[in-house]
């Protein structure tokens, strides 16, 4: 999905000096696509080790999962070839689609809120109207370093009725608030945890991009008498569109692959989180609780493909906006 994004870049990334050197040595083709004069196997010394592990960790498991997804375990303990039967089953599996719908809702609500907060914070840090910028930046970024498991447990305890925030409010006001761990609220509660974990990370992606905006743009805007909001909408936001697209893509992927939060909350809210709460949780439970490895492989592949398609659409939308402006 990032292919298009990156391929649009290389010509711009090559410095003029490089072109000059290549031109004078005269070994490069006129097309300009080939950036280096030397073309031999030396590069493999560097890329080889990565590709070796990469093959074992990325390529082989994918191929193996595809292979597995074409079989079905028989009662005798062997595997029999069933073609695309597992995929056909997934297409009409209500549990799988319920999980997909749930992460889609999550995506549509949580991602905009989180990225909106992150963008606001980044603009605030960059506005020159805030003091102690490093202090805010570090504190808001800190939750990113907290292990997901610990984050979920902290929030899980705080949500709980025994020793948390909700318990204290109930005790203090003598009320009975609806539990954040109840079935109706659990998705919201998970969204809050994910937002807490990643808002600082996204803020820093935006902030780094904002810092790269050339100073003279601001000076020109100031001379033109542009106000704060005008500067934000006409200069800052258009300049960091690339970062916004990347952050959105990462968040989309994260939403579709939601696992840690529901899986850990399950132990304290077993009634609210089903074994097929998200596609990943479903695949996990199919392979470990149910030993249905073949069907789990098919589910993992289908949800992976859907994730990639949606991420690619986000990428396309980002580029489309770019050509418009």
């Amino acid at each position, binding site marked *: 999905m*990032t292919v298009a994004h990156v391929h649009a870049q290389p010509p711009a*990334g090559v410095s003029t*000096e490089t072109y000059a050197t290549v031109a004078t040595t005269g070994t490069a083709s006129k097309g300009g696509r080939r950036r*280096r*004069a*030397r*073309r*031999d196997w030396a*590069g493999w*010394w*560097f890329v080889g*080790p*990565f590709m070796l*592990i*990469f093959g074992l960790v*990325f390529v*082989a*498991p994918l191929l*193996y*999962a595809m292979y597995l997804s074409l079989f079905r375990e028989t009662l005798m303990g062997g595997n029999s070839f069933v073609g695309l039967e597992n995929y056909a089953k997934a297409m009409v599996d209500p549990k799988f689609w319920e999980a997909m719908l749930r992460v889609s809702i999550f995506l549509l609500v949580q991602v905009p809120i989180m990225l909106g*907060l992150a963008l*606001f914070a980044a603009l*605030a840090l960059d506005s*020159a*109207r*805030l*003091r*102690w910028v490093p202090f805010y930046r570090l*504190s*808001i970024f*800190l*939750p*990113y*370093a*907290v*292990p*997901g*498991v*610990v984050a979920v447990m*902290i929030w899980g305890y*705080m949500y709980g009725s025994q020793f*948390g*925030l909700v318990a204290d409010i109930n005790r203090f006001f003598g009320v009975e608030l609806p539990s954040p761990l109840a079935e109706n609220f659990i998705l919201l509660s998970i969204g809050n945890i994910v937002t807490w974990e990643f*808002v*600082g990370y996204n803020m820093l992606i935006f902030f*780094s991009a904002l*810092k*790269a905006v050339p100073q003279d743009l*601001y000076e020109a805007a100031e001379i033109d008498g542009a106000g704060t909001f005008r500067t934000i909408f006409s200069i800052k936001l258009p300049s960091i569109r690339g970062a916004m697209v*990347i952050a959105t*893509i990462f968040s989309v992927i994260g939403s579709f692959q939601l696992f*840690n939060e529901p899986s850990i909350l399950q*132990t304290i809210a077993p009634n609210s989180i089903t074994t097929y709460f998200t596609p*990943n949780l479903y695949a*996990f439970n199919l*392979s470990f609780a149910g030993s249905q490895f073949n069907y*789990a*492989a098919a589910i993992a592949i289908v949800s992976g493909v859907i*994730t*990639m398609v949606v991420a690619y659409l986000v990428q396309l939308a980002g580029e489309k906006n770019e050509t418009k402006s």
Partner: protein
Amino acid sequence: MSAVDTAARSGRAPSRLASGKVARTETKRAKTVTPRHKRASVTLGILMTLMLLYCLVPLWWLVVNSTKTMDSLYNSFAFWFSGEFALFQNIVDTFTYKDGIFLRWLGNTLVYVVVGAGGATLLATLAGYGLAKYNFPGRKWVFAIILGAMAIPASALAVPQFLLFSGLGLTNTPWSVIIPSMVSAFGLYLVWVYAREAIPDELLEAARLDGAGEIRIFFVIALRQLAPALITVLMFTVVATWNNYFLPLIMLSDAQWYPLPVGLAQWAAQSSAIGGQAVPNLVITGSLLTVIPISAAFLYLQRYWQSGLTAGSVK
């Protein structure tokens, strides 16, 4: 990106540092060309402080509650200290519970981080440099495959990885956690973007004319130029490996190989199991002990993010 770097270092960074001393340097600044410092906005300060509280309050809760005894955990206000100061007792209990398994988990986590994240950083740096500075047969394919892989999240691969590693008989060994941790496609991307411009081809050509071998050129010349990108990659892989939960959860069945997050989740789940002993004070203290080293490492390494990641996010 070198332009970006220069902007970040010379243009804005000093003015950011100065923001804390606005009043003192006011007159000076009026004459210089830094028009971007305006009066601090109170509204902005309040909104950002709210956000700061949102981010820090759960960590505050963790610190406060790791100082409580089991009894005051249940019977006191959750956001302030209460009763006996039991932090040290809790730490001792955490390390001695179940024959000191927590220490074992800490050791496992350290090994996974050093070998996994260290290996990931080394491999990504080598490969990113190779892609940026060499033209070799199959280069285009390597690119396409790696960029495609960046779209596949680690968690989506975990189940297929388990299936394969289980077929190879590697599950329930440290290798099943370490080997997948050694690949960081995003890290490679960062190094590649950085290396393209941070290392001038002329420098490499000059070294070659002097008769230096390719490997030597990398370690003696390129590595130094790549340091900011390398440290950024290191930061991300260290955080990812220290915090990894899904992968070790499915790969490991024997508690003696668990890293901290999986172990803590098991302690937390224990209370809801039938006949299990609830140990929330140990879970909370153990969580604090897990958070402290990674936060320290993270706060130390994040200074280098600036120059390193700016590149990755802008391009």
